[in-house]
């Protein structure tokens, strides 16, 4: 997936994949992370 230059919202989940982990992956793609948040559904 080519995400270079794309604006990305990162929404993670505590018991799934948290936002910082997604952000670490996104950084490899040169995507522009404009928002990140981790939710806890319990």
């Amino acid at each position: 997936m080519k995400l270079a230059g794309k604006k990305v919202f990162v929404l993670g989940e505590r018991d799934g994949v948290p936002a910082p982990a997604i952000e670490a992956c996104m950084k490899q793609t040169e995507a522009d992370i404009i928002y990140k948040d981790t939710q806890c559904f319990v």
Partner: protein
Amino acid sequence: MTTPVIKGVSYCLAHTPGLVRYGSKPHREIQTDPLVLDKILNGLRSFDEAVAYLPNQVFIGNLRPHLLNQYERPWTTVPHADAERFSPWGEILPEEEFYGWLKLADVFNLVSFEAQFLAEQVKPKLALHPLMMANDMEKIGSGVSLVEIEEKVATGYALPLYVNKSQLIGAFEAGHEEDESLSAHTLLENLSNKATGIVAMRHALRSFDVQAENIQYVLGCDEEAVGDRYQRGGGNMAKSIAEHAGCMNASGADVKSFCCAPTHAVNIAGSLVQAGLYKDIVVIGGGSTAKLGMKFAGNLSKNMPIIEDQMGAIAILIGADDGKSPALRLDAVGKHDIAAGSSAQAIYEALVINPLERLGKKMTDIDKYAVELHNPDATEPNGNGNVPRGNYRTLAAMAVKRNEIERSEMKRFEEERGLPGFSPTQGHIASAIPFLGHARDMIMKQEIENAMFIGKGSLFLGKMTTLSDGMSFLIEKNKGVNPDD
């Protein structure tokens, strides 16, 4: 140096359908659309239904967790025919009795109940309750008139309290008219936590081989913020609860780390015992009104009763080695360090793999893992998945990655070493520790050798950090050498 042991664990549920409207989510939804209240009231279940609900019987200790796997879900459709309100370690409280405990816990006369309600529905039942102590009935008092309650509510500084959906029976007043930290809503949260904590602590002290006067320290592990406008969160709910459980030689403090505070507290209590500072400690966690009805919309959308109509409370007795109770291995504590990383793998590496490697053990050397044990009857209808299952799959995948099991054995790993979710979605209450009582009993009855408890906390919810937290502990069969022999 003594080994700390788990001398007993008690679990209580307070069935409080009348307080669901004051849960954070229902409260906000009702403010936006007052018609939501009727939908909630029509979705509430009876006390008998709450007692017969299989996960509740597991939570208080009457049924082993794995038996839930024999029943179709949702478990609301398969009431347990032989359900009991009491268990050897705890109970499910009906709402009327909970209100009695609330009044008993109320040392500032914040809550008033209608005289006839107290005389007919509360005091006669509590007079027969096995945990009642001298002067308890006196503390509950004789109540006030309905007119007086209506006047208190009319001031705008008191919350009306109900039974039978909409029968007004009480008023909960603010502690200060200008202080949000002492608003009626906040104090109702705090006092409900205290009241359920008192019940759990008294059960623990009654059910196991520990004397209240020998308790030297209590550690709170809940998520309430006790304090006024100048020190919201000042805390020490632990000492407030212990005062009402006869622990007159104890002091205490609270441990805060969101949902994983109980696993922190168990390790801290064990350390204090192992260091020789104290011989008997209680870890106490009362219930949360804020989480009542948190996922009510999911239940209603599936034509289920609202199962978040109850608060959970837990009391854990940790003491010096008695030669029989399961031992807490402080050389196998797992903690989620700041530098550890936030992926599920990094968290479990820190909480499970690192402590096991220190002991030279494999993942398959642990008989049972307790993770976030939220009941899927609450989470799945709301679109939040099966939380324990997701956690067990990650653990099983890690065992595959470490070449401990084959990929084809993942399901078996989950079935044999995992647990179904049976805890009310009460944050700190659901985080691993609901299994501690069963694990203690199973180890002492030779059903398992050991169990690992993995708690996780969502620190990021408080907007102070993007980090999460976690803490784990391991208990195992006592080697049977009593240092006092």
